[in-house]
C-alpha cells in the first residue's frame, strides 16, 4: 500500500469529482437525458424528483482537509455518500487515486473500503451488541484478521483516542463523546488513506464538541490523512478546514480557504454566514498583513504568519511601530501595524472589506 501511494505523483488528487450529480426520484435518469445534463431544480421538482447534488466538481489532495459546509437539505451528506458510494451517483465521475470509483465492481468496492476508506457517522452507528474493543476490531475482523491480531490493533486504537479502561464497555454504557471516540477509532483501525467524517460532532454538547474538535486536530496532526469533513456548523468549518466548500440546494456556492471565504464571500448566501463571524478569531495574520516595506523599522516583536489575529492582538497593540510578520523559517515576509488591528477589532466589517 505504501509503495503504491509513493508511485502516485504528488499532483494527482486523492479525490476528484467531475460534475457529480445526484437526483432522487424514479425517473431521474430519463429527465437528465431530456435536459441534456443541465439541471434546473425547479423543473425536476415539478417532475417529482429532488436534486441532491448539482454539478459538483472539485479535487482533494493528499493530506488536505476539505470541509463541506451547508444547512440541512443542502446536499452535503448526499455528496459525501456519493463519494463513499453509499449512494449511487446519477451523473458525473468520481476518481479515487485516479481509479474510476463508479466503474468498480462490488468486489473492488469492498476491497477499497476495507483498505483505503474510513468513515465516522453523526449518530456514531456503533454495533450495540459489541463492546468498545469488538467494535473497533470489527472492520479488521470483516477483513479476515484473526481475533487475536484484530484485538491487539484495537487496543492500540483505544489508546490513541484515550479510552483506556473502557475497553469492555458496551456502547450503551458510554457518553456521546466517548461513543464518538469509539467511532473515530473504528474508522481508523484499518489505517485508511481517506477519512470521511459525516457531521461527527453535531450530536454532542457544545463543550464536548469543542473538546472533540481539539482531539480531532491533534489526531490529524499525527496522522495527516486526506479528509472530507461534513458539517452544518460554520465556525467548526473555519476552525478545522484547509479549504471549505459551502453548499446550498445541491450547488457548491463557493470553495476556498477559510480566510478567503470570510474576506471575499462569492455570493450573497455565503456573505450571510460570514457576517456574524468575528474575524480576529478566524483570520491568520498572513491574510491581513501589509507587504514588506523596506524603509520601515520594525519593533522587537515578531509574529508568525500562521498566528490567529486574536492571539497576538494584545501584543501588537502595545507596540508603537510596525510589527514584522515572519514565516516558519523566521524570514520577514510582511508587516502589520496596530491601527490595522484596531480596525479589525472594532471597525465596521463592510468598511474593513472595502479598505482591503
Amino acid at each position: 500500500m505504501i509503495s503504491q501511494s509513493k508511485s502516485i505523483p504528488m499532483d494527482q488528487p486523492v479525490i476528484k469529482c467531475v460534475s457529480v450529480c445526484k437526483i432522487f426520484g424514479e425517473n431521474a435518469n430519463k429527465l437528465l437525458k431530456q435536459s441534456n445534463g443541465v439541471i434546473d431544480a425547479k423543473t425536476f421538482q415539478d417532475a417529482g424528483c429532488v436534486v441532491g447534488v448539482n454539478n459538483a466538481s472539485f479535487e482533494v489532495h493528499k493530506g488536505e482537509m476539505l470541509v463541506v459546509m451547508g444547512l440541512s437539505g443542502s446536499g452535503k451528506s448526499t455528496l459525501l455518500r456519493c463519494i463513499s458510494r453509499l449512494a449511487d451517483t446519477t451523473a458525473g465521475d468520481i476518481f479515487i487515486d485516479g481509479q474510476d470509483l463508479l466503474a468498480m465492481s462490488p468486489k473492488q468496492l469492498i476491497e477499497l473500503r476495507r483498505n483505503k476508506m474510513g468513515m465516522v457517522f453523526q449518530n456514531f452507528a456503533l454495533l450495540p451488541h459489541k463492546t468498545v474493543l469488538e467494535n473497533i476490531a470489527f472492520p479488521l475482523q470483516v477483513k479476515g484478521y484473526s481475533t487475536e491480531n484484530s484485538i491487539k490493533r484495537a487496543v492500540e486504537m483505544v489508546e490513541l483516542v484515550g479510552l483506556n479502561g473502557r475497553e469492555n464497555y458496551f456502547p450503551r454504557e458510554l457518553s456521546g463523546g466517548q461513543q464518538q471516540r469509539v467511532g473515530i477509532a473504528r474508522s481508523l483501525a484499518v489505517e485508511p488513506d481517506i477519512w470521511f467524517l459525516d457531521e461527527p460532532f453535531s450530536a454532542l454538547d457544545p463543550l464536548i464538541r469543542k473538546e472533540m474538535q481539539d482531539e480531532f486536530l491533534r489526531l490529524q496532526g499525527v496522522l495527516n490523512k486526506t479528509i472530507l469533513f461534513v458539517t452544518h456548523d460554520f465556525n467548526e468549518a473555519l476552525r478545522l478546514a484547509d479549504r471549505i466548500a459551502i453548499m446550498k440546494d445541491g450547488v457548491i456556492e463557493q470553495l476556498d480557504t477559510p480566510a478567503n471565504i470570510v474576506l471575499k464571500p462569492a455570493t450573497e448566501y455565503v456573505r450571510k454566514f460570514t457576517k456574524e463571524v468575528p474575524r480576529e478569531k478566524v483570520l491568520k495574520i498572513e491574510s491581513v498583513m501589509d507587504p514588506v516595506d523596506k524603509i520601515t523599522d520594525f519593533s522587537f516583536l515578531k509574529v508568525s504568519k500562521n498566528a490567529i489575529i486574536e492571539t497576538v492582538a494584545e501584543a501588537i497593540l502595545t507596540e508603537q511601530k510596525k510589527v514584522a510578520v515572519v514565516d516558519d523559517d523566521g524570514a520577514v515576509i510582511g508587516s502589520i501595524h496596530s491601527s490595522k488591528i484596531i480596525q479589525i477589532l472594532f471597525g465596521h466589517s463592510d468598511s474593513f472589506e472595502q479598505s482591503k
Partner: protein
Amino acid sequence: MNYLEKYPKLIQFIFLLVIFFTICFLVSPSETNILWRLPSLFAGVPLIINNFAEYLMYDWMLIEIYDPELEEYEDSALVKEITRGFSRSVLFCIEFIRDILLGGVKTIVAFTSWDFVKENQWAVWPALPWTLVASGVMLLGYALKGKGLALFAGFATVYIAVFGQWEPAMETLSFVLIAAPTSCLLGLLFGVLAYKNKTVEATLMPLLNIAQTMPHFSYLVPVMVFFGVGDHAGAIATIIFATPPMIRLTLLGLKRVAPEVVEAGMMNGCNNTQLMFKVLIPTARRDILIGINQVIMQCLAMAVIASFIGAKGLGFNLLLALNQLRIGQALELGICIVLIAVVLDKLSLAWANKQTDYFADLSFIQKHKYGFYFLALLLFTILCAYLGSIIFADGINYLYLIPHNRGITTELFWQSGVDWMVDNWYHGLQGFNTALIVKVLMPMKAAFLGMPVSATFVLMMGLGYIIGGTKSALTVGGFLLFIALTEWWDRALITAYMTTFGVIVSVIIGVTVGSLCAQTSFTSKAILLVCDTFQTFPSFIYLIPVIMLFGVTDTSVLIAVIVYSTIPATRYTVEGLRNVPQSLQDAGSMSGVNRMQRWLKIEMPLAFPHIMLGINQTVIFALFMVIIGAMIGTDDLGQYILKALSDKNGIGNGLMLGLCVAFIGLAVDHLIHTWADQRKLILGLK
C-alpha cells in the same frame, strides 16, 4: 353556524344512514330479489378446490415408488410422496424429543425395527426424571432473569407434575419444541428475503394480512388433506399459523436498524453475508426475539386446536374433558396449559430483554457456569430417581416419572363446586341467560338477518368512502362482494352480529376500565400486568369457566368473547392515555382543567387514534373467539368450518369459509387503520 362546513363528514354520515334505512325499508325479502340477497355464484368454487387438491394429491406428476412391503414398484403422485416424506420427518423429530422427555422406543425403532426392540429388552430410551426438567427450567429462569422467574418456573413445573399431568404436558411441549424453532427459522428466512427484495415484500404482505385474520380452524382442513392426521399434522398446522408474526417482526426489526449502522457496516467493508449476520440481525436482535416470543404464544394457542387433527397432549385431554362436560378436569388441564404458556412467555421475554454481557476475559469455568450447574443437576436428579426406585420399590417412582392421572387431583372439589353453583345459582343465571337471549340477542340477530344485501353494501362502502375515499370504498366493497357471492352470507351476518355485540360491550367495558385505571401510574401498571397475563392464555381456555356457569348456549360464547376481547380495548386505552405528552398535560394543568376536563379535552382526543387501534384488535379478537365458540355450538361461519373438518371433501369449504372470516376482519381492519392513520397525521403524532 354552518354545520355542513364544520362537520362535512358528519353530514355525509347522517345522509348515509338515511339511505341505509330507506333501502332496508324498501327492499322486500325474497330469494329472487337481487337487492335482497346476491346469487351464490361462488357455490361451485369449493368443489373446484376439492378436485384440484385431489388431483394434486393423487394424479399429478405420477412417479414410480418402490414399496418395500409389497416388494414392487407402484405409481404414486409426486405431491403425495413429498408430503408423506415431510410428515414422516416431522413425526420423527417430535417422537425423538418425546423419547428424550418421556422415554420410549420409537426413535430406536426408526433406526432398527420393532422386532429388534422386542428381542432386546435393553433397547429402551430412558426418560429424563421430571425433577431434572423442573430444575432445568428453574436454572434457565435464574440465568435469564433471576430468582423470581426461577421460583415461578419451579412452581409451574412442580404443579404440573404433582397433578399428574406430566406426560400430556411433555407431549404438548415436544410438539411446541419442534413447531416453534421451525416457525422461527422460516419466519427469519422470509423476513430477510422480504427485507432484501421489494417484490417479495409486496407479495408477502397481503398474504400475511390474510393469514393473521384467518381463524385457526381453517388451517386445519388443508393440512389434514395434505398431511393426514396426527401429531405431525398438528405441528405443521401450528407452524403455518405461527410463522406470519415472526416474518412481520423480523422485517420490522431489520427495517428499524438505523441506516447509519448499515452504512457503517458497508464502509467497514462488509460483504452482503457479513452485513446480514454481523450487523443487521444482531442489531435487530430484540425485535427478532420478541418475534420468537410471539411464535411460542401462537404455538400454545394452537395446542388445543391442533388436537382436532390428532395432536396429543394437554389440548387433546382438555377437549375430551370438555366433551364429557367434566369441568373439574378441564379446569385443571386449562391451568396447566396456562402455566406452560406463562412460563414460556416470561422466559422468552426475559431472553429478549437480556442484554449481552461481556465474558471473553472470564475463565473457562466461569464462562460455562450454567452448563456445569446443569450437569450437576443431571447427576443429582438421576441419583434421586435411583433412590426413588428403592424407596417406592413396589409402586410408582414419584421421583422419576409421575404417570398420567396418578397425581393429586382436585377434580372432585371443582366438580362439586360446579354442582353447587348449578344448584344454587341456576335460576338466577338462567333468568339472566333467557332475558339476554330473548330481549337482546334474538332481536339483534333478526335485525342483522333482515338487512338487504344492497343496504349492507351501501352502508359499508359509504363508510369506506367517507373515511378513505373511493379506494377504501372499493376495497371494502371487494371484501364484502366475495362473501356475498358465497352461499354463506346469512352465516356471515350471524358472525357479524355476534362480533358486533361482543365488540360493543368489550369496548364500553375496556374504555371505562382503562380510563379509570390510567388515572394513576400504579393502577395503570397493575392493569397492564393483568392484561399481559390474560393475553398469554390460549383463547380456548376462556371457554371453560363460561361453560361452567352458563352451560352450552350463545350466552357462553358471547361472554367468552367479551372477556377475551376486552383485553386489547383496555390495554390500548391505558397506553393511549398514559402516552399523552407531559408538556400537554402541564399546559392543561396551567390552564386550570379539572379531572373530567383533562380526560375529555386533552387526553381523549390525543389518545383516540391509539384507542381505535385497540378497538381494531378487539374486533379481530372477538371474531376469532366467535369462530372458536363453534365448539360450544353456534350457527355461524365457525360452525360450518367445524363441519368442514369432519367432511372428507372439506378443503374447499374450509378455505372459502376461512377467507370469509378473514375478509370480515380485513374490511374492518382497513377502515379503522385508514381512519387512525389520517387522524394521527392531523394530530402530528406520526
